[in-house]
């Protein structure tokens, strides 16, 4: 596609007629799109090539996976699994993110809380969410709540450290200015300065956490709660690699959708940067 120089440029840099005009965002997007498509084609070709030398239970070819994908979608199994995963993904991610940010802000802000909790935090931090499955079952049962718990733990730590780091990085000078303009008390300072100033770190934490939560969907369903992860685990036991890939694609797709939506939100919230 030929694009006229200067057309569709929505920057306010002014008109700079000349040979070395910066490529418009559209040009850049188009170029990246072409390269990306090339990469996808190359990847599929390589996959196909390798898969054609292997039996289907080791590595199915792309058309086989496509066929399985369509069949799973048509039977309603995919939608049911996805719906079930969403039922624990959403509360798990929400609660974990919320508590993580709250704890990160509180401990990043208060040296007293930080000192008091540091030993406990250091012991709990390296525990993988999957190791807590016993608690999930004992406290909440083999149900959505149990699965949500596993997901929440994963989201918690990522958001905790992101918010903690963000709060630690807030400049004392901004806090001084805020106090000199009449801000009184910790809660008011946190609301009016600390949280907005650390929003870049906090939102990056949320985004990373969202990705981690989709990964944890598999772990959270390991003890029998239905969902995408359960389908992947069951298919693995039956050596149905085509089904495994099908549901991996569903996971990736969900991640992509949520991540893109959140990135748009983040860009709006951080328009000041």
């Amino acid at each position, binding site marked *: 596609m030929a694009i006229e120089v200067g057309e569709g440029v929505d920057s306010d840099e002014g008109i700079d007629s000349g040979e070395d005009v910066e490529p418009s965002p559209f040009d850049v997007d188009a170029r990246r799109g072409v390269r990306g498509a090339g990469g996808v084609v190359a990847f599929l070709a390589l996959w196909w090539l390798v898969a054609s030398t292997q039996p289907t239970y080791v590595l199915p070819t792309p058309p086989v996976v496509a066929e399985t994908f369509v069949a799973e979608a048509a039977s309603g199994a995919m939608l049911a699994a996805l719906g079930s995963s969403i039922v624990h993904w959403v509360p798990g991610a929400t609660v974990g993110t919320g508590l993580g940010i709250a704890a990160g802000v509180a401990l990043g802000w208060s040296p007293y809380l930080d000192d008091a909790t540091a030993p406990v935090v250091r012991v709990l931090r390296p525990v993988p969410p999957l190791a807590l499955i016993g608690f999930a079952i004992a406290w909440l049962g083999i149900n959505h709540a149990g699965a949500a718990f596993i997901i929440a733990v994963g989201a918690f730590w990522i958001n905790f450290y992101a918010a903690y780091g963000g709060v630690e990085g807030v400049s004392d000078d901004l806090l001084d200015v805020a106090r*000199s303009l009449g801000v009184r008390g910790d809660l*008011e300072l946190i609301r009016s300065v600390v949280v907005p100033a650390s929003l870049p770190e906090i939102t990056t934490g949320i985004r990373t956490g969202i990705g981690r939560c989709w990964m944890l969907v598999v772990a959270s369903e390991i003890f029998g709660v239905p969902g995408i992860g359960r389908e992947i685990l069951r298919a693995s036991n039956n050596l149905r690699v085509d089904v495994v890939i099908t549901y991996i694609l569903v996971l990736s797709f969900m991640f992509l959708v949520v991540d893109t939506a959140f990135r748009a939100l983040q860009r709006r919230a951080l328009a000041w940067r």
Partner: protein
Amino acid sequence: MTDSDRDGVRPRVRVEDVGRRYDSPQGVVRALEGVDFDVDAGEFVCLVGPSGSGKTTLFRIIAGLEESTTGTVYLAGDPVEGPGPDLGLVFQEYHLFPWRTVSGNVGFGLEQQGVDRDRRERRVRDLLELVGLDGFAESYPRDLSGGMKQRVALARALAVDPDLLLMDEPFGAVDAQTKRMLQSELLDIWSETGKTILFVTHDVEEAVTLADRVIVMATDPGRVREVVEIGTDRPRSRSDASFGEYYERIMELIRA
């Protein structure tokens, strides 16, 4: 403001025997010792001195950001016990809230005071006009030049109508031309608002241009060497004979 305040019956700022000592591996550092002066209501006072004379420490103590080891600072009769809206701060590095627009920055203090939206917006508009930034209300700080940022910081400090405007080398980070412009704007704003200003600078020319009185600091320990009253009418020209005399005299006091 009552007439008696305006007449300066009691000083707007009273710095009483302020001292500040630090412990350091090399022993006790006497950053400030026996600093004692007044600033009258509506007065423009500059604080100059070589580096190490405790200017910034004194700024922070008056602002209530740091505690003095001895002595007390009184603002309108009351001891300063921490930063608050009776004291407007302007820093060299602006310290604007980057996530807030220009009008959001200027309106920040008014929001804290619970001023309703209508009145707030009107006041912000007036202030932006005062500092010559009408038209930039919705810009973010990242899009502003240094001089513009400092105008925003000044408007933000003025918004809460402080008893004292305390400025720490506010024009130290802008180019010479912008600096002159900001100085004359500050003088206009000062005469328009009648604010009391205490202005820290290391630039003697700036001090002679702006101040009613120049407090010259000395080092080791940080203390007041002399207070020089600038008698010349404003606007002052750097080419005036008296300007040069004041300049030389202060430079000598600093070098001594």
